[in-house]
Structure formats: structure tokens, C-alpha cells
């Protein structure tokens, strides 16, 4: 019965491992400080494309500097930062998640963003507004309320006076968008910028209530940054004319 004995050990070990091991939210960037000065930026998922572009431009403008990004839901990033994740800069999709970071310096609002309804290409379900999302049989993905896109969605839905029952609450806006791209849901409330980056796969339906749920995006150099100078340089670049150009091209609004 050797097999039983060994698997009994395995059972004990696995039970512990599988139940406790949660998603390891990958944030293994941030090498030790080198001469060039690596800058680690934690940024909202909705900034993925524009900040990646900005990072490349920043590196080109500051030779020897490398920028490492950790993109994710703003609330999760805030938790990671509070638990000691090594970040120099935090760019959040809402002031609430910035405030949750205890050692954020003085945040500056750098862009604003608002929601659209992302639907499959050609809008097969003929969605025209929030009220259409209440139709039975129509599958809707929303962000969880803790993440900014979910909070904004709740504000917009409340403003419209409708009740939407989503099939899933996603942990960041990209996850909600991908469910539309995969065709698993018929619609999702995502940022205008996200819908624009996926214009090949989804159509964006503008709706009036989104004006009541505009998100301010704050950015700040963190108090315990390993590379505060590099962090400040990156923030300055985001706020510069070059930075604004990239962000507005992606569909963000100036603050």
C-alpha cells in the first residue's frame, strides 16, 4: 500500500497548497536599483496600451532608464502597494483607489475617461443604451464594484434608473472586455479607450448616463519609491505635451 501512504502525504500537502494559494498577482518586476535607474510603474489596466507607448518614448528620451509596468485593477494594485510591493509610481483609474494607498504623495489628475457599452462587431443584439442591457437572455459583464470601472458602471446604471443583472463581475476592465471579444457575453461596460483599442473586435455604443460617471485618473510618485527621481521624471513625461498627445490619441479626455 505504498501508493496510498505516499498520496496521503500528498493529500495533506496539496490541501494546504491548493486552498491557500491564490492568484499570484504578478508583480515580480522591479529589479534592484541599477545605475540607469529602473522605474516601476503600477497602472490601471485601462492604461495598458497608452502607458506602454509612453514608456517606450520615455526610455528613448531618457537613455539608460528602463520602465517596468504592472497593469491591473486599480484596487488590487492599491492593495499590493500597501502590502509593500516595490512601486515608484501609481496611476489609478479613480481617486478612491489612490486614496487607499497610504503613502501616495500628492496625486495629479492627468486624464479622464468614461464608459461605453462594448458589444460584438456589428452590434448583433442591437444594443442602443443601458435600458437594452436589462433584456432577459442578454448576457452582460460588469467590473466588480471595487474596481473603478465597476464603480463608474454602478453610478451610470443608477443614474439611468435601471437594474442590470450581470453574469459575471470581472476584476479589471480588460477582463470584462475580453469576455465580449470572446463572444461569451453580449455586452460589457468598459471605458471608451478600451473599446477603441479593440475596435477590430468590438463596437462601442455611447450612452448619455456615462457623462455622470466620468473617472478622474490620478498619478503620483509613491512615498517609499526606490527611485523617486526617476518616478517624478516619468510623471512629468505623462503630464507633458508629448504624454498628453499619446493619451488623447487613445481616447482619454484632458482633465
Amino acid at each position, binding site marked *: *500500500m505504498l501508493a496510498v501512504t505516499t498520496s496521503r502525504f500528498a493529500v495533506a500537502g496539496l490541501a494546504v497548497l491548493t486552498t*491557500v494559494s491564490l492568484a499570484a498577482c504578478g508583480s515580480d518586476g522591479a529589479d534592484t536599483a541599477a545605475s540607469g535607474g529602473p522605474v516601476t510603474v503600477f497602472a490601471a489596466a485601462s492604461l495598458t496600451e497608452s502607458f506602454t507607448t509612453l514608456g517606450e518614448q520615455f526610455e528613448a528620451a531618457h537613455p539608460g532608464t528602463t520602465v517596468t509596468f504592472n497593469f491591473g485593477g486599480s484596487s488590487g494594485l492599491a492593495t499590493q502597494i*500597501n502590502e509593500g510591493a516595490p512601486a515608484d509610481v501609481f496611476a489609478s483609474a479613480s481617486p478612491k483607489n489612490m486614496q487607499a494607498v497610504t503613502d501616495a504623495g500628492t496625486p495629479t489628475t492627468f486624464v479622464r475617461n468614461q464608459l461605453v457599452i462594448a458589444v460584438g462587431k456589428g452590434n448583433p443584439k442591437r444594443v442602443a443604451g443601458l435600458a437594452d442591457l436589462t433584456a432577459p437572455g442578454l448576457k452582460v459583464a460588469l467590473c466588480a464594484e471595487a474596481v473603478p470601472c465597476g464603480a463608474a458602471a454602478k453610478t451610470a446604471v443608477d443614474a439611468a434608473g435601471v437594474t442590470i443583472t450581470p453574469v459575471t463581475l470581472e476584476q479589471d476592465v480588460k477582463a470584462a472586455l475580453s469576455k465580449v471579444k470572446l463572444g461569451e457575453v453580449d455586452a460589457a461596460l468598459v471605458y471608451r479607450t478600451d473599446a477603441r483599442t479593440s475596435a477590430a473586435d468590438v463596437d462601442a455604443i455611447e450612452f448619455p448616463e456615462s457623462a455622470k460617471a466620468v473617472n478622474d485618473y490620478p498619478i503620483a510618485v509613491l512615498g517609499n519609491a526606490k527611485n523617486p527621481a526617476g518616478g517624478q521624471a516619468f510623471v512629468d513625461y505623462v503630464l507633458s505635451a508629448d504624454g498628453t498627445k499619446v493619451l488623447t490619441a487613445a481616447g482619454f479626455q484632458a482633465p
Partner: protein
Amino acid sequence: MRTRVPLPLLIPAGIGLVFLVLPLAGLLARTPWSSLLTRLAEPEVTTALRLSLVTASVATLVCLLLGVPLAWLLARVEFPGRRIVRALITVPLVLPPVVGGIALLLALGRRGLVGSWLDETFGITLPFTTAGVVIAEAFVALPFLVIAVEGALRGADTRYEEAAATLGATRWTSFTHVTLPLVAPGIAAGAVLCWARALGEFGATITFAGNYPGITQTMPLAVYQTMESGDLEGAVVLSLILLTVSVTILAALRDKWLTAP
């Protein structure tokens, strides 16, 4: 039997043990004990816990129904491509669960290989349903059961089955009356392993089945969402509840079934 344990074995063994236990100590150190019971009474927590226990148990049942015959086939029948089949079965083991979830979407999702047919023919869609959670859990946990049971079958003495055959038993009778009782402890061990893996399943579930309280939000998803929302204390409490429940159930099962001589 009192021999000195060689240090080159003792030291890494000790470090290994500390490595496994330390994170648990960290969890316990941060546990707000006073709010543990009040949290346990919260409807969100009981809903997620019940969903976790039900889906993991159903997934284990599915794995038993499919996995034991599969293990028997691998252990007892020579057929071409057996090695390839065995390798394929271990794929979900090495696959990151999130990748498994994406694969499930592409196979069983609304536009998936089989899923689109299910949707068009029967109007069945699996993502975002409790059945989807069971499927994700079973997909990830099945290899554990198959490997455990196949090992038990290979270790079992085939002379009993041969004796049954000489006495006129069909292969089916021999399987139900000789083989199954013989490897029952192995099946039980595999089922427990499978259940534990299903209970802790996260990546494939959130990717394939989504996250909605009461329908697809199992305890690991609830823990993740609680932590993502900035409530680290709540996440620690939920983790501890899941840990306590699973360890208690496993310990109880072990005493009952796995104390084979």
C-alpha cells in the same frame, strides 16, 4: 532502529518544512480572531463556502465516474497510443489553470468548438453557470484521480483477477467484485486529492465560469475579490475559513477511509 539521521538530509528536510509552514504562520499571525465568527455568519461567506463544497464534491463525483474507468484502461489494457494518452492526461497538471480556463472557453464557450453546437442545438451555454464551475474544477482535478488510481491498479496483484477469470467471471464482474475492492483505498486517496484540488481551484474557474456571487463565486474567488477590493483582513479571514473547513473534512475522511492497514 535508532540510527543517526544524516545532516545532509535533515537540514534540507527542515528547511522544506519551514518553507511550507511559514506562509501558514503568516496567515495565522494576521488573522483578526475576534471577527472570525461574525464573518463566518455573513451570507456572502456562507454562500461562497456552500458553493465551493457543493461544486468540489460534484466535480469529484464526475472525476470518479470518468477517471476510474480511464485509470483501469491505462493500467490493464494494452492499446496503441497508450503512452500518448497517458501523457495527454497529465496535460491539465502542467497547464497553468488560467490557460486551462481559456482552453475550456475555446472548447465549451458560446463560440467554442463544441460549445457553439451546444448553444445552437440545445440552447445550453456553460460559461457563467454553476455547471461551468464544476467543469473547470473537474478538468483540473481529474488527472490527480487518474494518476492515483492507475498507480493503485498497477500496484495491485493481478493474480486475483486472473483467478476470478479462471472461475468464469467476466471482465466486468471481475472489475466490480475483485478489482474495485482491491484498489478502494487508492481510489479513496485519489478522490480526496481530487476534491482538495477542486476546492482550491481558482484560475480555470474565474476564466471559464466568471465571478458572480451565488452562482460561480467559490471561496477562492471570494478571497481574491475581497483582497482586490483592498480588504486584506477580510481576505485573510476567508482564507482561514476555507483552510479550516478543508483540513477538517480531509482529516475526518482520512480517519474514516484512509487508515488502511
